[in-house]
C-alpha cells in the first residue's frame, strides 16, 4: 500500500481530529442538528409527542392567534429595548466615572459587578421581596409618614414589566460597565492629549471621540446582551411567574410551558423557531460586518 508514502489526508493530523471529536459532534449534532430538527418539526402536527405529519404553517397561524404569545412577544420587545438602552447608558456612565482616576476604583467596580455573579433566580426572588407591595419599599416609605406613596410595579398588569426591568438592570449593568471600561481604556492615550490641547471638555471627548472609537466593543456587547435578553426566562419564573395573570409572560417561558407542562410540542417548537429567527436577525448583520471587515483587511 502507498499509505507510507502518501498518507490518506483524512488521517493526517489524526490526534487533533480525535481530540476535536467532542467539538465536532457538538456542532453537528447539537447546534446544527437539533436546531434544524426543531425548525422542521415546527411544521408538524405534533401535540404530546412529535409526529411526522406536516401541516405547513398551521402551528404558526395558531401561535400568532394566541394572545399569550402576542403578549410574550410584546413584553420581550419592550423589555429588550429598554433594558439595552438603560444598561448601555448606565454602564457607560459608570465606566466613564470609574475611569476618572478615582480612589477605591476596585471597590466600586466590585460593588457594581457582584450582582452579575448571582443567578436570575436569586435576583428575581430578592426583588420580588423588595418590591412586595404589602411589606416592601412601598410599605416602608408609608411607615415613614408618606401615606399615599405608591410603588406597586410588580402587582399591576401595566407596570410589572418595569419591575422585571429594575431587577434585570441591577443584575446585568455591571457586565456592560466592565466591557465599556475595557473599551475606554483600550483607546489610544494620545487621543486624550489631543482633545485636551484642543480644549474639548472631558464629557464631549467621551461622547464624540471615545464612543465612536469604541464601535467594536459596543457592537460586541450589544450582540451578547441582546442574545441574552431573548433567552429571558429564569428571572420571570422567580419573580412573577408570568403574572399578574399573563402580563409578564415571555417567549422562552411560553416554549417551556407548552413543551413540558402543557404537552403541546408543536406550539413550543413553532415558538422556539420564532426565537431562533429573532436571534438570527440580530446575528447576521453582525457576522456580515465582522467578516466583511476581515476580508477587507486581507
Amino acid at each position, binding site marked *: 500500500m502507498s499509505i507510507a508514502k502518501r498518507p490518506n489526508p483524512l488521517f493526517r493530523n489524526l490526534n487533533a481530529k480525535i*481530540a476535536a471529536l467532542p467539538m465536532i459532534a457538538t456542532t453537528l449534532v447539537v447546534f446544527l442538528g437539533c436546531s434544524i430538527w426543531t425548525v422542521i418539526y415546527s411544521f408538524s402536527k405534533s401535540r404530546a409527542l412529535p409526529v411526522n405529519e406536516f401541516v405547513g404553517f398551521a402551528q404558526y397561524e395558531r401561535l400568532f392567534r394566541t394572545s399569550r404569545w402576542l403578549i410574550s412577544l410584546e413584553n420581550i420587545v419592550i423589555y429588550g429595548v429598554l433594558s439595552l438602552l438603560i444598561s448601555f447608558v448606565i454602564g457607560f456612565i459608570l465606566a466613564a466615572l470609574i475611569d*476618572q482616576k478615582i480612589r477605591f476604583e476596585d471597590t466600586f467596580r466590585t460593588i457594581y459587578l457582584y450582582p452579575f455573579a448571582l443567578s436570575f433566580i436569586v435576583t428575581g426572588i430578592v426583588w420580588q421581596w423588595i418590591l412586595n407591595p404589602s*411589606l416592601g419599599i412601598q410599605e416602608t416609605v408609608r411607615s415613614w409618614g408618606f401615606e399615599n406613596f405608591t410603588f406597586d410595579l410588580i402587582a399591576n398588569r401595566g407596570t410589572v414589566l418595569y419591575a422585571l426591568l429594575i431587577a434585570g438592570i441591577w443584575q446585568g449593568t455591571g457586565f456592560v460597565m466592565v466591557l465599556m471600561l475595557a473599551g475606554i481604556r483600550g483607546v489610544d492615550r494620545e487621543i486624550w492629549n489631543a482633545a485636551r490641547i484642543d480644549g474639548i471638555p472631558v464629557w464631549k471627548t467621551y461622547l464624540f471621540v471615545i464612543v465612536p472609537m469604541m464601535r467594536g466593543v459596543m457592537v460586541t456587547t450589544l*450582540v451578547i446582551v441582546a442574545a441574552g435578553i431573548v433567552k429571558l426566562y429564569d428571572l420571570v419564573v422567580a419573580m412573577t411567574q408570568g403574572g399578574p395573570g399573563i402580563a409578564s409572560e415571555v417567549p422562552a417561558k411560553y416554549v417551556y410551558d407548552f413543551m413540558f407542562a402543557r404537552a403541546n410540542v408543536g406550539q413550543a417548537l413553532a415558538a*422556539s423557531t420564532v426565537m431562533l429567527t429573532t436571534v438570527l436577525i440580530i446575528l447576521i448583520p453582525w457576522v456580515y460586518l465582522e467578516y466583511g471587515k476581515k476580508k477587507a483587511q486581507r
Partner: protein
Amino acid sequence: MTVESYEITRAKPSKSSAKEPSGAKPLRRINPTRIMLYSVLLVAAVYYLLPLYVMMMTSLKGLPEIRLGNIFAPPMEVTFAPWAKAWDTACTGLYCEGLKVGFWNSVRITIPSVIMSITIASVNGYALSNWKFKGSEVFFTILIFGSFIPYQVMLYPLVIVTRELGIFGSLQGVIFIHTIFGMPILTLLFRNYFAALPEELFKAARVDGAGFWGIFLKVLVPMSAPIFVVAVILQVTGIWNDFLFGVIFAGVKNFPMTVQLNNIVNTTQGVKEYNVNMAATLLTGAVPLAVYFFSGRFFVRGVAAGAVKG
C-alpha cells in the same frame, strides 16, 4: 477635527507625553466636580448594595417584626432560626428537608460538569490553535455562533437524545448538557490563550519529539494555570446559577439549589416566611458570591473573555 489635532500632537510631541497617564484629564483633589463624581458613584453603589443589605436584615428578623413593614430597619432582635430552617427543614413542595438537599445536588452537578467541560474544551482549544486541520475553523465558527442560539431551540431534541442515551433525568444527563453548552465559551477562552503563547515553545517541543498529547500535557498545561483558574471560576458560577437545565435534565431527585430555592419561595402554600426565603436566597447566592469576592480580577477576565474575539 480630531484627526488633525491628533497629527499635530504627533508631529510635535509634548515633553510630558511619555509619562502621561491614560484616561481623562486628572482633576484636582477637591472641587465641585469631584464631589459630584463621588456622589454619583456612591448613589450607584447604594442601589447595587441595597438588595444584599435587605436580604441580610430580613433573614435575621422574626416574622412579627417583618410584618411591621420596614425592610430597611436592622433587626431589633437578631435570630438565626430562619437560616437553620432554610437549610434544614424548609419545604420544597413535597419534601421538607430544606435547602441542604439542593446544595449537595448542586455540588454533585457542578464538580463533574466543571471538570468535564474544562478538560474537553482545553483540548479543543489546543487542537484549534496549534493543530489546525481542514475544516477546524468552520467547526469553531459554528460553535461560537451556536452559543447565541437560544437554548429553547435545542431543548426538545436534546431531551430525545439524552433519553436515547438513557441519561435523561439523571446527574449524568445534566452534566452532559452542561459540558455541551460550556463548550463554546471555554473553547474560545483556551484557543485564544494558547494562540497567544510563543510559537517557538511549541516548535521546540516538536523538535524534541513530543507528540500531540505530550506537548499539551507537559508543556502547555503547566504554564496555563491562569486560564484554567478563569475557566473554573466561569464554570462554577455559571453552572451553580443554572436553573433551566437543572429543572429539565437533572430529574426531581437531583434538582440543583436554584430549582429548590424557587420551589421553596414560589410554591409554598399558606404563610409566607419571608425571613426563611431570604436566608435561603442568601445561601444559594453564597457560593457564586464567595467565588466572586475571592477571585477578584480572574472573574472579570472570565466575563470579559466572551467579548474579546480571537
